[in-house]
């Protein structure tokens, strides 16, 4: 039992790092000067204060929340599918969202609510389609079936999105679709944050509450059953929570890649594979990761760098580092 304490302690350190990053992010921006905002500006410049309260804070809150959601979902997917290299892209969730957004941009008038609603709706539809399809496949165990179905549904949505991009007006729609797919938080307001909270918070609570059970759900179906767990049902609950929150996040932020894939690995490296600790660690690390990337996106240049590019870039670097240092996470 004495061994557990250093790992639990690390969780507290992570929490401290998160709070520090949050505080620091509030002072980063482009106004009045690039990068650091002096505290005196908060006192003297009314516009600076307004910008921080109305622009920076909701954006920081969104980055923080979405980072949490994406990495928690990634951890859930990886454990449920017993595959350390899985994220929401495997279930038709991100591709469904991309399809929904493109559909709304090109054919639906492109209003904010239409794009976001469509993205979220099709993201959930992607999971539902994968799940329904998986039940009809008779090949291998549950996990294999779901992955196969998910790949098929993802491919279907991808090609449909490709078709939409093809007929899209290259001067109007196509840049919007492209920019949506690159991901970005540049338009986030408090209203957006308030809209997603009712979905994201309960889902995160569910996932956090079931984190110990997640370990059991990564065992064989029969073993989980023998331990009194209903493997199909509990996995479904977790999946729905993960996908619903991911859909909400993706609808606002566009596609932000690699977070769900790489952050759980880092978390497991730091606090061990037990989901009881690895899940909260994933959430904390993910929130910091996306927060820092978004800080960079809005501060580094006078123009906005799409968030998806930064998360992919840094995500792949971290991935390579982990790959080269030792075997990635742990699997046989």
């Amino acid at each position, binding site marked *: 039992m004495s061994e557990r304490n250093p790992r639990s302690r690390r969780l507290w350190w992570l929490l401290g790092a998160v709070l520090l990053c949050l505080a620091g992010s509030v002072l980063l*921006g*482009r*106004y*009045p*000067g*690039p990068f650091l905002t002096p505290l005196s500006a908060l006192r003297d410049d*009314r*516009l600076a204060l*307004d*910008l921080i309260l*109305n*622009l*920076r804070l909701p954006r920081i809150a969104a980055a923080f929340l979405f980072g949490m959601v994406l990495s928690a979902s990634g951890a859930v997917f990886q454990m449920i599918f017993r595959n350390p290299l899985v994220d929401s892209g495997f279930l038709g969730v991100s591709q469904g969202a991309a399809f929904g*957004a493109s559909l709304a*941009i090109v054919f639906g008038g*492109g*209003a*904010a609510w239409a*794009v*976001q609603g469509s993205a979220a709706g099709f993201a959930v539809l992607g999971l539902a389609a994968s799940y329904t399809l998986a039940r009809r496949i008779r090949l291998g165990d549950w996990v294999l079936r779901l992955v196969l179905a998910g790949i098929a549904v993802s491919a279907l949505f991808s090609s449909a999105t490709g078709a939409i991009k*093809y*007929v*899209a*007006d*290259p*001067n*109007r*729609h196509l*840049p*919007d*679709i492209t*920019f*949506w797919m690159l991901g*970005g938080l*540049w*338009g986030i307001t408090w209203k957006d944050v308030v809209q997603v909270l009712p979905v994201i918070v309960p889902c995160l609570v569910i996932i956090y509450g079931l984190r110990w059970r997640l370990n059991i759900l990564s065992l064989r179906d029969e073993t989980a059953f023998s331990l009194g767990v209903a493997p199909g049902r509990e996995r479904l609950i977790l999946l729905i929570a993960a996908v619903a929150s991911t859909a909400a996040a993706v609808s*606002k932020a566009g596609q932000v890649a690699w977070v769900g894939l790489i952050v759980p690995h880092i978390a497991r490296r730091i606090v061990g594979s037990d989901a009881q600790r690895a899940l909260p660690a994933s959430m904390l690390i993910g929130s910091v990761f996306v927060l820092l990337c978004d800080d960079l996106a*809005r501060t580094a*240049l*006078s*123009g*906005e760098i799409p968030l998806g590019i930064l998360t992919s870039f840094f995500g792949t670097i971290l991935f390579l580092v982990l790959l080269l240092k030792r075997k990635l996470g742990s699997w046989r």
Partner: protein
Amino acid sequence: MRGARILSPLIVCVAVVLGSLPARTNAQTPGSALRADRGDKRVSVRTEPAIEVIDAAGRTVRLAKTPERIVVIGKGPHFILHLLYMFPEGRRRLVGTERRGKTASEFLDLIDLDFKKKAPLGVAPGPEAIAALHPDLVLGKGSSSERMSEALAGLGIPFVYLSLETPEEFFRDASNLGLILGNETRAAEILAFYRSRVGRLRSALSGIAAERKPHILLAMATDRGGKVSLQVPAASWMQTIQVRTAGGVPVWLDAGEKTAGWMIVNLEQIARWDADKVFIVVWHSNDPQKMLDGFKSDPQWKRLKAVRNGQLYAFPSDIFGWDSPDPRWILGLTWLAAHIHPDVFKGIDMSAEIRAFYTRLYSLDKTTIDGLLLPRIRVDVR
């Protein structure tokens, strides 16, 4: 055995690499397909090409005679079409154009009742679909046309690139078109129209020192993709050139230089630039007044210098924006100059300018202009 194991993946890799290299054919002079001698051993009969132009991509294109059937393709065919329609021959000889979304049809439908019938090709037509129209010239813009030009060269159909991205390139493209259509007089008229106006602006602004030039922000506002975003144009684009030529200092140059496209800027950066005047380009499907009102009622926007001084404008528009490589750029430039330096350009009457544009360049009569075009043009939204 061991060697084969190393060798076979190596061979596969090499094969993949070689297979993915693009096939480089000699596409420098596709017009040469029309020339009789191609290195064969036949007795060659040299016919000198009647027309020779250097197009926007630097290619030398040779045509045996004036083309009778012209097809326009590319991502924004209406830029080329609007220029082509300034030439009566161009208008007559257009047989087909690519159609993507509701673009070119709106203006050209108004002035050419036959436009719809010009056998519109679907989106991104293949060389066979184009060849089915039996064109003897294809005009295109942009890199997506690159492979098309090579494919068409194989079919013996000449391809000419147009750029239209800057005033100089616009003039060169217009001259090329004049040469190709055999109407250099008309080309000269068009160039004279544009050059005189640009020259007038330049000479009026020549006396103004750099420090006195106002700082200008020009950004496009869209609410597509889910949120209202403001994007600044690339440094090399027409919009930036328009602002400079109109005697303004574009504030977004450091952002614009990073990309070759639109770049999103957030409000913090806009507040940091705090330009003297702000011009918002609004998509014609949005209501510019509503858009501006939205900005002006935002408490943060209210603090900006430009909004405080009432210097927030919507860029004018009619069916097509005046801020793109479309031939209307001259109207945009004139309007911009009048608003950036109102004291210098007191005498500019935009209605007269618009009328002159449509009368002299498109030969439209007063009824058409007053009845169909002017009602759709919004010039003073602030």
